[in-house]
């Protein structure tokens, strides 16, 4: 928190170690573009249908989360507090609720269609 208003300790240096070249970020950036593009290609080009399409997109979404957490958010690089664990668990819970809930709620449309 080098930019924070009031660091209460005198140590103002960043707490994570810095790489010479941001390889992680570049790999992560490329991977997230590839994953997004692949999902779009599947849906837009009608290459998959029905549950196969949904399962594929979900799998890519999970990979996307892994990319974000490990390559951008440095999940493993510092010892987290209990608050970190709690918020990450909450994040997974809410993500699950939104995705699973939406599929459950909106699948009525397939009966209509």
């Amino acid at each position, binding site marked *: *928190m080098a*930019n*924070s*208003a*009031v*660091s*209460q300790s005198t140590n103002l240096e960043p707490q994570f170690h810095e790489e010479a070249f941001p390889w992680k970020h570049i790999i992560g950036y490329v991977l997230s573009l590839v994953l997004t593009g692949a999902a779009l290609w599947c849906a837009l080009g009608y290459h998959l249908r029905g549950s196969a399409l949904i399962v594929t997109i979900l799998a890519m979404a999970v990979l996307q989360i892994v990319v974000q957490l490990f390559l951008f958010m440095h999940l493993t690089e510092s010892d987290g*507090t209990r*608050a970190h664990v709690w*918020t990450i668990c*909450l*994040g997974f*819970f*809410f993500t699950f*609720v*939104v995705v699973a*809930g*939406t599929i*459950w*709620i*909106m699948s*009525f*449309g397939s009966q209509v269609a």
Partner: protein
Amino acid sequence: MKNFFVTGDPMIYASDVLIVLVLVGIIFTLTYFKKWGWLWREWLTTVDHKKIAIMYLICAILMLFRGGVDAELMRTQLAVPNNHLLSAEHYDQIFTTHGTIMILFMAMPILFAMFNAAVPLQIGARDVAFPYLNAVSFWLFFFGALLFNISFVIGGSPDAGWTSYPPLTELQFDPGPGENYYLLAVQISGFGSIATGINFMATILKMRAPGMTLMKMPLFCWSVLASCIVILFAFPALTGALLLLTLDRVVGTHFFTMLAGGNPMQFINLFWIWGHPEVYIVVLPAFGIYSEVVSTFSSKRVFGYKSMVFSLMAIAVVGYLTWVHHFFTMGAGADVNAFFAISTMCVGIPTGVKVFNWLLTMFRGRIRLNLPMLWTLGFIPNFALAGATGVMLAAAPGDYQYHNSYFLVAHFHQALIGGVVYGMLAGMYYWWPKLFGFVLDERLGKWAFWFFNIGFYVCFMPQYELGFMGMTRRMYTYPANMGWTTLNFISTIGAYLMGIGFLFIGAQIVYSIFRGQRDLTGDPWNGRTLEWSLPSPPPAYNFAQIPHVQERDEWWRIKQAGLADAYRKVNLNELEPIHMPKNSGIPFLMGVSFFVGGFGLVFGWTVVAIIGFAGVFLCLLARSLQEKTDYHIPVSEVQQTEISLGRA
């Protein structure tokens, strides 16, 4: 360009004249008193949480006025049958702007005003975790609100309801800039809200004074933490929904059209994934304020602190699982509706726990009926009714009868006015002396309370009945033979009474600026938490020395131990330089850039949009390349400030 300015309606022309007069007045005053530099240095570039709180508060009160005028126009239109004061189209625009402004440009900023006013002071911090980001949040909100508000004189207001459901909001059914205004203004201010959520979550988790464990935190901070968690997980759904609808309108995609494989119900699903938690985003901090106020004005510690914390968190999580109750009638099936009906009713349990805790806090307390307490007492019966009617609406089969009727309108106004507005007004009266250094006048405030509170019931109780009689929301007029005339007329009288209440609040603020009782002690209410240990208003750095906290109601403990006077004295020799963030003009310029970019997209002017968003990028770049974003206040300056405050 022919339809650039809205024409034809005398009320709009009157507004044009007023807007020009006010602008000329502001520019003249600032120039005449040579205040432009002051405005830039002290306000537009500030990153001080206390000043940002004041700016949020001023904007919120102005927006309450704007949304209130919309409400009075609607009630005037509905006072008698077959009324044609407003045309159907104009009425549509007014209920749309009323809803959007009240939720997004009134409730959210007044909420953030309270966050900024109280949280850093309560946890013993000198500012929020990311003060620069805090300023960015404010200016994104400000320019989002400005973009939304100019729509009624330039280009035309949105007219598809604050929920903006497709397919009505698709380009083919609703051409023109109106809906674009809604989408972009809400999007821009939404970015700011997400940033505020992150900011205060980090502040509360990371910036507490030594000794203040989470379970020693004031309940308001807990409620802000709960609210921020919900902001962080709910707002991205709105961002996504608005983005997809914007793409539909601007680029011609088919996410929500019936043709080409789109599904309009998906927008409704995404909208309410944000929309229902949004209710808890705004009401949880109000609960926090009630807890502070009840405890302070009963001179007792809050009853059941741990159950209060638990129920706040339970509401935050369970409240996230209820969104389908806004569209039971979509017909997703009995299993889906049953699940969401039950989860909705479950939210009533932790809320009930809180109500009983407030009552038991007052039990055998020495209650003082100052304005914050008055609004808190007004809230409790109000919210009990809102909860009861909420459970009625939550019963899915019953909801098929109440859906989109005036029963629903009355219910959510009771929850949002009775819960949120009362809470924010209580908070405003409570922390006003801390922000401004004077207390708001009690006598005028009591007039305001009674007009508003009585007006509220006169306005909304008849609307429950009208709902049962079949009157649906958003209808711009009704025939005389429906039997709705009397109740509508009574409701309009109530709306006027509430309007008079608001005018009393305005009068009270103006009167108190000149005649209000100055707060020289810093502790006008005999408070219990750390903000009341500071002078009113506190110095820029808040705490000359960061306090070491021992107990939950730390300031109360210090006072009870007879140490208050000693505690207020700073030992000048022990002071150290204070590390603070520098002011920056970039957040303001970034807001201007977003405004220009948004305005360009609203009218489909690509060049203007590109210029605006290039400006945003330049602001980001400029900030990334800045080396020195912070500085130290030297000891001598801190000493002088503390001496001038009489604390040395």
